[in-house]
């Protein structure tokens, strides 16, 4: 046997295994700004998850619609109360839960569609790819907000579930372009030919060899996508066609105080702060993930 060789010496210190995801997490933790962002986001997520335990009041209870309405911030109600006498702090806490949930679930819907559509088009190539991409161009030419407004005006009083699906269904166009481009670039990579030469089927190549290589751009797109959905949902709720009452989302808390925004300033300030913070941290994380993956 040819046995132990010189070229082995160079890499003899066996390093621990590192997957792309682990690399992403490690680099994020190394950078100060993204470490702070991760921490702040973690706190907000925790607030959302633990909402029933930490909210001081029932978010939809209206204890005294005459005496306890429109109260400014105080010890008993740190974020004040709304025109229905509900505690704004409790609503913001529950709002964190709902807004984040909508953001994550809608983005999952987008990812599923975007990856499936983009990967199919890219891998199939040729006429199929051309047709699928022209169809996508058509969809991309309609502004997302307009599309959603159309849907929500046509079907008012949508359930949360359908709202999530619609938010997701209007959010996958850009991602599928990215995925398609990557698949197109990767499908002629030598390791794909090598896998073929060793007997792997087309389906196996797509699922085992191409998709895992797309994890990085997908993670980046997802992080930025969640932030986008949160803003969109707030916008729709602010227009009164998003999350239905009496559920609390950051957008519809602001909507409840919108007609007297100068007087009831606490009703837009606090949920607004939470929203801006969340979106900012997500963007910081998304950007630093992008830096990690694009540098490689």
């Amino acid at each position, binding site marked *: 046997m040819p046995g132990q060789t010189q*070229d082995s010496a160079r890499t*003899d210190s066996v390093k621990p295994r590192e997957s792309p995801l682990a690399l992403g997490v490690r680099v994020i933790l190394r950078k100060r700004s993204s470490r702070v962002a991760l921490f702040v986001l973690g706190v907000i997520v925790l607030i959302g998850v633990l909402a029933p335990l930490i909210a001081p009041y029932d978010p939809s209870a209206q204890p005294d619609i005459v005496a306890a309405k429109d109260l400014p911030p105080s010890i008993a109600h740190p974020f004040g109360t709304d025109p229905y006498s509900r505690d704004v702090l409790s609503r913001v806490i529950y709002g964190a839960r709902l807004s984040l949930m909508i953001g994550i679930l809608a983005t999952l819907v987008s990812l599923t569609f975007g990856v499936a559509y983009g990967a199919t088009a890219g891998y199939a190539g040729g006429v199929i790819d051309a047709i699928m991409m022209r169809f996508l161009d058509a969809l991309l030419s309609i502004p997302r907000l307009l599309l959603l407004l159309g849907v929500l005006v046509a079907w008012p009083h949508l359930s949360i579930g359908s709202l999530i699906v619609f938010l997701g269904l209007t959010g996958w166009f850009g991602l599928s372009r990215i995925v398609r481009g990557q698949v197109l670039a990767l499908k002629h990579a030598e*390791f794909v*030919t*090598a896998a*073929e030469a060793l*007997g792997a089927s087309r389906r196996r190549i797509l699922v085992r*060899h191409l998709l895992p290589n797309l994890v990085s751009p997908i993670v980046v797109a997802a992080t930025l996508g969640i932030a986008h959905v949160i803003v969109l949902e707030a916008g729709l709720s602010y227009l009164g066609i998003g999350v239905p009452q009496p559920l609390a989302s950051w957008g519809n808390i602001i909507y409840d105080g919108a007609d007297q925004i100068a007087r009831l300033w606490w009703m837009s300030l606090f949920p607004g702060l939470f929203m801006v913070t969340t979106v900012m941290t997500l963007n910081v994380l998304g950007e630093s993930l992008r830096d990690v993956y694009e540098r490689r």
Partner: protein
Amino acid sequence: MTPLLSIRDLRTYFHTEAGVARSVDGVSFDIGEGETVGIVGESGCGKSVTALSILRLIQPPGRIEPGSRIEFEGKDLVTLDDDAMRDIRGNRISMIFQEPMSALNPVFTVGDQVAEVMRVHGGVSRRQAWDRAVETLALTGIPSPEERAKQYPHQLSGGMRQRVLIAMALIMKPALIIADEPTTALDVTIQAQILDLLLNLQKEFGTSILMITHDLGVIAETTSRVIVMYAGEIVEEANVTELFAHPHHPYTEGLMRSMPHIGHDTERLNVIPGTVPAPTSWPRGCRFFERCRYSWDLPEHEHPPLYDVGSNHKSRCHLAKEPQRRNQPHEPLVIREGAGAA
């Protein structure tokens, strides 16, 4: 004895908008069991396309033209259905690629990738496949294979990665391994190790090897029979000693003259003037005509057949009929008509 692989009149054409590129144009050869055959030629001569054709990995607009036959273990690979073909790839015939970096998937551990070949073909459990992968990695001389198997390609050196690719090609104990420039991307010292490894493993398993390279040194070290390709055709075929002792075709001669020799104090290396013509428009007669040192009228008009010029020695050159012309070398046409006129 029937050979392991028997290729007859293989023609692989690419139907592009610029015309039909006849990249492989009527190639026939055999590989016996346990034999190492080399294909040598410069870039664009059709050697890699020949290799990919055997595994039927030609992508559109390329296709293997009807009438071509690739017989392997009693089956015609040209007409085999896709499932059966997939069953042969990696299992009975496997391939080692040129670039050990890009031929490995960057997001999986190398052990996973070696084991995957086993999983695709073997019907074995994940655990068994992994164990076999580690065994095979050990066989290719990778130290501490258990730990190495858990690493990603970027954590290994070029020579290590090439060993991993060899392990992938070897794990199913195929009858034939096609090695497409297996050492081109490696340091010279590592090259020798990898070639030794291949030859040792071949002795151990009795595998046949088709060695594709542009490096005559690799050919001389590893193969028993050599096929010289030029412009989509076989221009010379002989046993390795015979070929190096008595090259017949002027192209082969040119390849050998362009090798540096230890002890010869030449300032510049010899080159073969001109380049391979475009595969969409091969010259009608001899395809080497314009670059040849002995060319005369006949080669321009008459396409030379493979002449027998010795025992098991064939050459596609009209010199076989008029050997005295070898004594009158002259400037090739490309030089006489100005560089780049081809």
